[in-house]
């Protein structure tokens, strides 16, 4: 028989502390869909996704009821679309629209993988594909896009960085009627991972098998409550408590992932234990950091707290599952975390501090709104800084910034739902244009040369 406290603890985690399976993401290889023409390929892509992911919504609903744990999002990730579109890159948008239709047909909320991997160099078809991103994102609803511009092994492709600054700007302008919403679906990575279940950066890597289920678990509220329970503990005890909590959450995710994979005729890929906040109160990573003893997230000490949190989460996750993957750590998206939003509004959280935080957390500058008149070169420079942090520290970093059209510091842009609202944060006014214009490759660091 089960221990009463343990049973009630699980129920409390769900009922009061927002424990949930944030996403069940089905990775689908679309390699077999490449046909002679764009039209034919679009049809095959649509058919393949509808076939493989046909039951994803029903199966996740059943699992959620049977195990008593909410499964918030159902998603699909695909082979980086630049590969699928390679023979007819100028018609990439056709494939993008087919992907969006397929996502709607199977009932997933996002489909990720309108992506290109150009961390060392950019082929002509990839450049053409990347140029299709702004228009494609403006004409689709559920499609997410990402571009990998650097890696620890290859360095940073500064030509791609320069291009992505312009692409981000253009995407914002093309979706200006929705506050630059397109940029919320566009991530620029360094060291992108192939099995990430979280959006907007999910894609199905070429090293993956045909159909895979990756699960993202979340629970900032659970961790916050665990810390609240030991208000005077020292940091070693705090780390231990976070680790234990992460263990339990990951175990729940693994169980759901295995069962979902079985019922959907897919392979079980990985569990990604990431503390992913939502705009709901009690579901905030900032609140965890503040619970640790900071008056406001963003103040001195924030980086240290986040480093400890991220590491403890990873350790608990690794103990719980031998298939931990994705990003696994703590996310710090500004617009999706009520604590971050409030800190940004107070002025205690700035982009420079967020940049430092990204050196120790699992992602990067995420869901940050900047003034609409921020230049493409400045956005490229922000991307370059993040990529450098990722490259040197052998970790994934990402940039998802929204240069909100017509908005300036003091304004706010509201996307609603899980994407939340973002106060416009100031960026440095001094130009980095000459640096970005240079182009070329920032060579890989010496410590990447391990062969």
């Amino acid at each position, binding site marked *: 028989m089960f221990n009463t406290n*343990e049973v009630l603890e699980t129920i409390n985690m769900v009922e009061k502390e927002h424990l949930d399976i944030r996403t069940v993401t089905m990775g689908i290889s679309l390699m077999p869909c490449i046909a002679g023409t764009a039209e034919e390929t679009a049809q095959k892509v649509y058919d393949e996704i509808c076939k493989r992911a046909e039951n994803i919504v029903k199966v996740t609903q059943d699992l959620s009821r049977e195990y008593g744990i909410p499964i918030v999002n159902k998603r699909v990730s695909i082979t980086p679309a630049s590969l699928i579109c390679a023979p007819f890159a100028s018609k990439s948008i056709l494939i993008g629209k087919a992907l969006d239709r397929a996502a709607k047909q199977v009932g997933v909320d996002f489909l990720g993988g309108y992506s290109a991997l150009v961390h060392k160099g950019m082929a002509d078809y990839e450049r053409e594909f990347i140029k299709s991103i702004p228009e494609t994102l403006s004409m689709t609803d559920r499609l997410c896009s990402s571009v990998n511009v650097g890696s620890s092994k290859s360095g940073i492709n500064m030509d791609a960085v320069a291009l992505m600054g312009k692409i981000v700007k253009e995407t914002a302008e093309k979706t200006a009627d929705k506050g630059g919403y397109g940029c919320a679906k566009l991530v620029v990575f360094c060291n992108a991972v192939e099995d990430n279940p979280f959006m907007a950066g999910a894609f199905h890597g070429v090293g993956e098998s045909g159909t895979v289920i990756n699960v993202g678990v979340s629970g900032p509220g659970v961790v916050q409550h665990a810390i609240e329970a030991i208000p005077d503990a020292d940091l070693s005890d705090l780390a231990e408590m976070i680790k234990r909590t992460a263990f339990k959450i990951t175990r729940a995710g693994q169980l759901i992932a295995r069962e979902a994979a079985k019922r959907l005729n897919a392979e079980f890929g990985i569990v990604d234990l990431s503390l992913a906040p939502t705009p709901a109160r009690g579901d905030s990573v900032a609140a965890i950091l503040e619970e640790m003893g900071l008056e406001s997230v963003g103040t001195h000490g924030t980086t240290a707290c986040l480093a400890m949190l991220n590491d403890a989460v990873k350790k608990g996750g690794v103990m719980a599952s031998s298939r931990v993957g994705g990003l696994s750590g703590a996310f710090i998206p500004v617009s999706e975390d009520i604590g971050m939003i409030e800190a940004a509004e107070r002025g205690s959280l700035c982009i420079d501090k967020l940049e430092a935080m990204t050196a120790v957390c699992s992602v990067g500058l995420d869901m940050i709104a900047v003034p609409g008149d921020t230049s493409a070169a400045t956005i490229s420079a922000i991307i370059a800084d993040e990529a450098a942090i990722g490259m040197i520290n052998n970790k994934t970093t990402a940039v998802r910034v929204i240069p909100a059209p017509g908005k300036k510091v003091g304004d706010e842009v509201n996307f609603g739902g899980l994407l939340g609202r973002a106060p416009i944060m100031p960026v440095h006014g001094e130009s980095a244009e000459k640096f970005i214009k240079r182009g070329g490759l920032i060579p890989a660091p010496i410590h990447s040369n391990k062969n």
Partner: protein
Amino acid sequence: MRAVLTVVGKDKTGIIAKVSGFLAERKVNILDISQTILQDYFAMIMLVDLSGASESLSTLAEECSEMGKKIGMSIHVQHEEIFNAMHNV
């Protein structure tokens, strides 16, 4: 298949009678029961077997939740594996 049924709420008479009757109607077999009062709150945990049950686990979970609302209690039915997974190394 086995599931864990939990009933939590303000203590009053007849809770076990109500729940066990509800389960019997659906041919759900009770394997074990433990019940305590935690800070004035009634907390009951049942281990139940659904192999002969007339309903699927997900339907039973929904029905129990509905029935719980009627008697002012919070009732959950969950696959036992979730607790094994989360609380055993």
